[in-house]
């Protein structure tokens, strides 16, 4: 009976998964499927025009580049360490192959795990750095690995490299053709994984973090943890490519995993399209064509092709960067959409159910913050109760925004304590406070430039998810899919609250300033908060926008939220606030109910 129930459940889950896949199937997916099919039959069609070992090397290069796409495309981090990760996978796999009798696939997997370890360490080291420093830091790592291989012949095998024994691969004779087909299949799977992750909570959070760190942090996106994860995943795939490539080459070559490989992989990703699943693979094909061009130029000039190849690659990269990142795959997709626009997506967001509201009181006692000799906040205490809007007013420099930052966790207080209900928040991070029910919007109307309106709200709902982890996303488990539906409904409800439900599928960049303000309020609401901290929502708003905002705050109050409003617009304060706290030189100068009331 139990087995029968399991079978029924499994059948239902599979049917659901197929239905979901069919619903989300697009022209791009068809094109990608055709491309993979063509790639699989390429060795038989090309008939020796390109040698199978060259094709197999290209396939593993595409796999490593697709792995790098995780870092560059999803996290927006320009990693120049992928060559080092590929090399780590290659040499660890080579040593395991030489020293043990383990199966070839397991040796490659061990290499990938070792690379993921190095990737985790690298990600941890650069987790909070900006793009330029990440590029420099990872470039140094690549050099470090290359120098270590050169300096340690016992590790690298010296000039002759580390010769590896040949072992059967998945029960097959490991010919270059077998390696090629394996490389294509793994690259296809990795690209599929990339698509799944990009659409899931992991990808949305990473995209948000890469497009506006401050706004993402305010919504509780754990940026540093995600970056480390992206590095680790990217390194794992790179290490797997290295661990398999070394078996194709039958030698781990210390000269093959230097900075040039890292550079080429990054060029492939940027040229093909970092955000497109098959962009890195296309980039690798473009690099292959460049290699042919370099050979032709070399033959014309009577010098080695290797002198032209890096130069041509750098020129191509420069062209892509100067044309605003006009990479091949995104350009092709844009061109295709001119002829065949994407059909409108069937909306599954009609059931606009708001999440159950949380009603908690926020209490802050004697908060203090000093910047050197300046006392920005000095002994501020406040209480934010459910169904109440508290306005924090005061002249510029009186400490209003600092109070918000202390409450949200963006700044640690020098003194004082913060409680939400019975839970002390004082030592919690911003992300932990958001999960606890305290969220903040920023002053300057930041938004995530490449996300749609709906995706902004989804970033907020990610804070409430239990089954949105990377593995569940990749496998798309029934729990993940069920939670997805709930998250989409909650995100849609948040957009309805702020009057943006009709704009759900528009790019956020098309909204007005006031629309963006409301959008970030919606994203904050999607985290299902008990307390909402809002910084100058009325700044620059037109009269009709002010009316909308008033209606929103009134509705939120009715829904039971505790709201702290930092405002300069006293008319707006009078219209929405229940009590007014006036700050002066970091101290509470007055605490009164709204005179209107």
């Amino acid at each position, binding site marked *: 009976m139990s087995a029968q129930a399991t079978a029924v459940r499994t059948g239902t889950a599979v049917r659901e998964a197929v239905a979901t896949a069919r619903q989300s199937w697009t022209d791009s997916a068809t094109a990608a499927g055709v491309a993979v099919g063509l790639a699989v039959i390429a060795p038989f069609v090309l008939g*020796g025009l390109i*040698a199978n*070992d*060259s094709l197999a*090397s290209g396939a593993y290069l595409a796999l490593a580049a697709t792995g790098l796409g995780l870092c560059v495309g999803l996290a927006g981090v320009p990693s120049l360490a992928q060559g080092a990760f590929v090399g780590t996978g290659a040499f660890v796999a080579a040593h395991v192959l030489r020293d043990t009798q383990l199966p070839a696939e397991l040796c490659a997997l061990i290499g990938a795990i070792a690379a993921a370890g190095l990737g985790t360490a690298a990600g941890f080291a650069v987790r909070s750095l900006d793009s330029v420093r990440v590029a420099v830091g990872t470039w140094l790592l690549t050099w470090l690995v290359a120098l270590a291989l050169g*300096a340690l*012949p016992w590790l690298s*095998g*010296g*000039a*002759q*490299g580390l*010769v590896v024994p040949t072992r059967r691969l998945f029960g097959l004779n490991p010919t*270059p053709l077998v390696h090629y087909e394996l490389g294509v299949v793994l690259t296809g799977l990795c690209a599929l994984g990339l698509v799944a992750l990009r659409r899931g909570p992991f990808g949305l959070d990473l995209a948000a973090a890469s497009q506006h760190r401050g706004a993402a942090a305010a919504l509780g996106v754990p940026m540093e943890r995600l970056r480390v994860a992206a590095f680790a995943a990217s390194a794992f795939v790179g290490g797997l490519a290295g661990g398999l490539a070394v078996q194709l*080459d*039958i*030698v781990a*070559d210390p*000269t*093959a995993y230097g900075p040039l490989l890292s550079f080429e992989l990054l060029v492939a990703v940027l040229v093909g399209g970092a955000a497109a699943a098959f962009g890195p693979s296309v980039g690798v094909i473009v690099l292959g064509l460049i290699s042919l061009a370099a050979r032709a130029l070399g033959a014309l000039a009577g010098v*080695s*092709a*290797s*002198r032209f190849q890096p130069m041509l690659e750098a020129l191509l990269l420069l062209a892509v960067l100067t044309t605003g990142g006009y990479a091949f795959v995104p350009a092709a997709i844009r061109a295709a959409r001119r002829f065949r626009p994407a059909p409108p997506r069937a909306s599954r967001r009609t059931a606009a159910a708001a999440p159950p509201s949380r009603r908690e009181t926020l209490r802050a006692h004697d908060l203090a913050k000093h910047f050197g000799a300046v006392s920005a906040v000095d002994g501020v205490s406040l209480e934010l109760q459910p169904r109440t809007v508290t306005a924090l007013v005061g002249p510029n420099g009186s400490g209003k925004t600092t109070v918000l930052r202390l409450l949200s966790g963006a700044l640690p207080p020098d003194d004082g304590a913060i409680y939400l209900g019975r839970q002390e928040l004082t030592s919690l991070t911003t992300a932990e406070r958001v999960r606890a029910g305290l969220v903040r919007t920023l002053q300057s109307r930041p938004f995530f430039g490449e996300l749609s309106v709906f995706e902004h709200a989804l970033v907020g709902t990610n804070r409430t998810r239990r089954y949105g982890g990377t593995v569940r996303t990749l496998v798309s488990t029934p729990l993940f899919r069920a939670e997805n539906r709930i998250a989409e409904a909650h995100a849609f409800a948040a957009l309805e609250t702020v009057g943006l439900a009709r704009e759900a599928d528009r790019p956020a960049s098309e909204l007005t300033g006031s629309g963006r303000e409301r959008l970030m309020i919606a994203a904050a609401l999607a985290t299902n908060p008990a307390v909402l901290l809002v910084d100058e929502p009325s700044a620059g708003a037109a009269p009709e926008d002010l009316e909308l905002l008033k209606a929103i705050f009134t509705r939120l109050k009715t829904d039971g939220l505790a709201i702290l409003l930092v405002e300069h617009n006293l008319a707006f304060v009078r219209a929405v606030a229940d009590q007014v706290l006036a700050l002066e030189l970091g101290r509470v100068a007055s605490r009164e109910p709204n005179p209107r009331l």
Partner: protein
Amino acid sequence: MRATATVLVALSLVAAGCGHSSSASKQQTILVVVDAPFSQSPYIGNTIGNGVRLAAEQLNAQTLSAGGANYRLRVLRLDNALSPAKAVADTRRALREHATAIVTDGTGVDATWRLANSKHIPICIAYQGGGGLVNPQTRPNVFRIAPTDHGLAFRLAEYLVPKRLKIALLADDSDYGQEGKAALADAFRTLPKSVAARITLPSSASDLAPQVLQARRSGATALLVWAQAPALAKTIVAARSAGWSVPIYTTPAGEDPFVRQQLADHPSWVDGLTFASGRMTAELGPAPWATFEAAYETAFGTTNVGVKSHGRRVIAPPDYAMYPYDFVNLLAAAVQQAKGTNPAKVLAALNQVSTHGANGDERGFNERNHEGVVDDDVYFARFSHMVFRPVRDDPLSSTLPQINQVR
């Protein structure tokens, strides 16, 4: 119209088929693949490539017949860029193109020999002398025509120890230096009193004065440097600029034009530099070498060192080109003995044939020995006024004539 096209296509196919069969019956190809570091070490790559090409052109100028067919040699140059992985890819290509033999500097042979051996394709190493690369029992398809590290190290020990010198052994941190260090350790194992110090030279350092000073403080009365040309030049500069006139001995790196170019402003610092290398002339006298050198210069011109001696231009003799040249001649002999290009038969025949090499020495292999240059072929030469001549205090060198190096 359609019928005409069909007839034309059919006729052209027939013509192509006839042409192929006719040429196949008359002339077949012996493909020799040169896998060398043309991009990373052009001097070495081109020397090996030119040696092979010269031999192929000379053989093609005659008629190479075997088993009733005529053969023409074709040379395919592939750049391994000093990368073992590229060497593997090049070997795979050589096998796809049905190469008869592969001539290499030695890069990646640890990985490539097995691939080549699966098709019975011989590999000849024409530059690297590392121990373990050649072993007729375990690597039956690997041959070498070049001085071995072992031969150089033992000849150096044999030459220096009777001079009662206290020798500082300096090896750079490149693979070349480290392999040499191991060979020297082996050669001086039973002669510890002759060794004053063992020092590693950092290749990337701009100044080797600290290492030279360390050697001087160790009480060394001679330096034996096993390093690539740049590190060797820096060692000489460091010693001489400190006023230390210690005798300096080295490997074939000493005759690399780079060393003399680096010391062109101080020709006297090069004077006395002594190096070990494979001899260019044999018991037959200098005539064979002169013939080879003239043919080489006619085909490829002279290799200018970039310095002058007594106002005349100094050239580098193509001594390392004679090794691949000799191998191609051996290969042709093996094809003739095998009566064709059947790989297994050619490989077996390589163990049986011999030829007179470019320097007049007899070159050949057998089933127990795949080394084409014996230890006694290693000689010593000393620089004076930017050209070198064989030393007079070594019995195997003193009888050798000086090769003209000025034009």
